[in-house]
């Protein structure tokens, strides 16, 4: 990804707010895949933002007389669970929790990862060695193993979960920023800026980071999917969200005892996770194919 085709993509994103936003350019690059990706993403975002208005029941309030209602009957359009709570409303709550969690953690990752990547790429020295050793340490364990060890210590809850995910899974950003920025720091325009007396931080964030922007967008989408999975996996193990909070991981964990009686308790949250993850993967693929030549979206 070193020579990412910036113009098309940078034009798209850069002009987004301004008046000369060019719809023709969009029509040229938008293939059906991208349209589907961004439509799905828009729907998910809509549900996440306006969730309270489209819930049909209170997600926490159960009706014990209506336990295990199959989908589509008695007003529960995705069925009800073992306490008679509406699965659709709980799924919407789960979406909000997951999106908020993944988004915040992702932004944290983006910030930490790109800062460390830039610092390590800037010049050889002690800082580079330390940062690389840190990355090496984090990489020597499967992500979930580290997360489990830390979450056990810091406890459950939204803030701790976001902080754990945010502080520990930035390696992917750092590696890409490091790889691409290393060559950018050697370019003439950076040298010129240095000679002109531009400050160190302003070179890093103002001159070098924009050159990595296209890759960062792609990683942001794929990493978002990864964080969604990590979050629901931790909740499923009973380590992430506190018990009782309607998240997809918790809903899956609850469904395990009622597999014979109410398979929809498994299918609803599983479908939600898969939809969200596939959407984010599609978005990542779409951005990647916007930022490079068309028709090569298979190899991300």
């Amino acid at each position, binding site marked *: 990804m070193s020579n990412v085709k910036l113009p098309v993509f940078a034009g798209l994103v850069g002009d987004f707010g301004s008046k000369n936003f060019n719809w023709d350019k969009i029509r040229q690059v938008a293939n059906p895949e991208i349209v589907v990706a961004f439509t799905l993403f828009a729907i998910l975002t809509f549900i996440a933002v306006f969730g309270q208005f489209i819930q049909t029941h209170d997600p926490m309030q159960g009706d014990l007389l209506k336990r295990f209602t199959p989908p589509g009957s008695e007003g529960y359009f995705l069925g009800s669970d073992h306490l008679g709570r509406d699965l659709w409303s709980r799924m919407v709550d789960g979406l909000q929790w997951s999106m908020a969690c993944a988004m915040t953690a992702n932004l944290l990752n983006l910030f930490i990862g790109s800062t460390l990547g830039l610092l390590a790429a800037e010049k050889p020295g002690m800082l580079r060695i330390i940062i690389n*050793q840190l990355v090496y340490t984090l990489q020597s*364990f*499967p992500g979930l193993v580290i997360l*489990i060890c830390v979450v*056990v210590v810091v406890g459950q809850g939204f803030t701790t979960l976001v902080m754990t995910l945010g502080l520990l899974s930035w390696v992917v950003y750092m590696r890409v920023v490091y790889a691409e920025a290393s060559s950018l720091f050697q370019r003439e325009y950076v040298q010129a800026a240095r000679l002109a007396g531009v400050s160190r931080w302003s070179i890093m964030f103002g001159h070098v980071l924009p050159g990595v922007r296209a890759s960062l967008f792609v990683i942001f989408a794929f990493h978002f999917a990864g964080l969604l999975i990590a979050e629901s996996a931790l909740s499923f*193990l009973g380590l992430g969200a506190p018990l009782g909070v309607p998240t997809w991981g918790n809903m899956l964990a609850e469904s395990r005892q009622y597999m014979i009686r109410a398979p929809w308790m498994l299918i609803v949250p*599983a479908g939600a996770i898969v939809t969200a993850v596939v959407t984010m993967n599609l978005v990542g693929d779409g951005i990647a194919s916007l930022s490079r030549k068309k028709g090569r979206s298979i*190899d991300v």
Partner: protein
Amino acid sequence: MSSASEVNNNKIDKSLNKANLIGPFIPFIQQLTRLLVLLFMVTTLLFFMLRLAGDPALVLAGNDASPEQLAAIRAQYGLDKPLLIQYFNYMLNLLQGDFGRSLASGEPAMGKVLTMLPATLLIAGLAMLISILIAIPLGAWLGFKPERPDRRAVSGIIFVFQGVPGFVTALIFIQVFAVNLRLLPSLGMEWGTIEYINLFSNLSIPIPIPSKTWILPSCSLAWFLMPSLTRVVAANTSEAMREDYIRTARAGGASGKSVLWRHALPNALLGAAALIGTQFAFLMGGAVITETIFAWPGIGWLLIESTQTLDFPVVQALAFCIAILVFIVNAITELSFQFLDPRLRSKGN
């Protein structure tokens, strides 16, 4: 990238390395140093982190223990000393290969981890094997003519599969094959033993008994690994099919199939080998959730159990073991590239 002076420098470096006996081992020594620093960092961090998590004496004694009992347990395990002293004691023991004893069962911690290890290796190997057996032919088929509608449909399906997390796959497999169809068992694993008796010793070597319980865990793990591998093989194959040497072979009269199997696929597999290495390294941490769901007695399952009971000697031993395993797998992957990729072989490093 390769200006004249750089080439010269490389030559000088190489001649220096040849003169020096340690030369060829420098990368290896560097790697080993990194591993040692890593192990030190991890044990140190984990030590302080797990002590912050809670009082192990409380876990050992239970919540309704009297203060005297707690004090006795603290004295017995050396938990009454200052934290730094405990840390130094722990590191000293570690240097002698003593990881301490499990707080839950009193067994040696490393021994406990090592007895769990074969199950993890078994499931990882099986899953990897199934995944490779499916992914390579499928990827070659997809990458041969990626623009055909049937291949586009299949790669679309594989794209969706890629978005299914491993634990969701596992749950759905249980739902379908164990609950609905009642075909396969969903839990557990059995060990048998081979008695090895001679004049001097009486060993019983544990071996896994092949059974139906292997099918669901290994298949659901393979299901999770397969899509990304297939996509990589497909992408690399289709890329290789556009290369000049393929056109040459085609022009020379080679049939489409022989071009695929003899020329394009071997190149595609190089890229896949890197991913296989990464995936296997990932599995060394134990497919934590898959093992938990299927009650598979591997190190992933042990990790969950020991973290939840704050059994920190076991967690420490686990982290140590996983780090070394990941290191070994990565080293093997890198070495195997030397054999697989002729370009690296001819460089002679």
